[in-house]
């Protein structure tokens, strides 16, 4: 089952957030990803996008598209 595009992107971006002790001493300012994504459209017009399920492509796998995304850290003022 493929996830929605935003869920996949969130997981990807959040995986770069330092955790534990590293959070106190490391700050990531810029990240750029370039990765394959399987893309489809749900019947309710949502874009589904997920990482390829396997490195080996079979005849039943979607030919992956490619996504380049760059993010930067910003101060959040509440």
């Amino acid at each position, binding site marked *: *089952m*493929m*996830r*929605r*595009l*935003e869920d996949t*992107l*969130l997981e990807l*971006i*959040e995986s*770069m*957030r330092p955790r534990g002790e590293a*959070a106190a001493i490391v*700050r990531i300012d*810029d*990240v750029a990803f370039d990765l394959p*994504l399987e*893309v*489809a*459209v*749900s*019947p*309710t*017009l*949502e*874009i*589904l996008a997920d990482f390829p399920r396997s490195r080996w492509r079979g*005849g*039943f*796998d*979607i*030919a*992956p*598209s*490619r*996504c*380049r*995304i*760059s*993010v*930067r*850290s*910003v*101060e*959040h*003022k*509440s």
Partner: protein
Amino acid sequence: MSEEYESLPLEDFINALSSQLDRAQAALTLKAASTHLTFAVKELNLQLRTQVEAEGSVVKIRPAAPGEREASILNIAFTTVTRPMLEEHRLTMQPAEPEPEMEVEGEAPAEEEDPLKQHFSEEERRRLEWVGITNADQLRRLLPQRDPRTIERVANIPAFRLRQAMMQERRPVVRRIVRDDEPPAPRARNGDGEPRGEGPADRLRLRLEGRNLRREAVRGVRVDGESVPLVHAGDRALIVDAPQAAGNSEGRVDVDLADGGSLSFAYDPQILALGAGITVHPAYSGAKP
């Protein structure tokens, strides 16, 4: 959530992509509440393997299905929009002044189902989201400020259905009546300092809860046929001072609306006297010709 390999207009794909990126950014911002540091998407470039086709003047795309190795590649790039760019292109919108609502004592009103669900299918709601309408309040406020033909084209919903839904959502609704514990205003006094006319002891303060109950939408309220003073008229509540006798008599309320119609309902005064709220289902009488 099942995948599908149907084609869809290119602009629908772009709208959906843009809307889902907005959601991703909103979620990132929410997560920053504890750390005060968040990530912002600077650029996104999608090389989409797709089949491109045209139906009349509509260009449609379909993400490549399994086995379609010779699909076209569509490059879509999103970049950060700066505030001046945004202000240059955005439509003028005057959001309604939010009205401070009074606290309601006692039983909380039941959570209402999203009214948009009553008017539009899930797919139609998704399309409305693309034009910035995600709830009934935005439908009420934004529709009059935008060209319905633009929304009709982007959302693929006939303008008359949008207007019909908006009219229904703007109509005053009363859902609950409750006795209000706030004491009524003190009685006016004559020249000798004696209370004049009916006073707090003679009045029963009632709160009618619902929505769209602002003063411009409501001409007046009658309790058991008698016009009563309107103490407060807000978006979600009307407060009236009814005669104390209203607590003993039959219990009938008529809310006269600005469009000439009225909302009428009966209630049990004995239940009201216990301090409990009563859910009501008013009958709407249309405007007199």
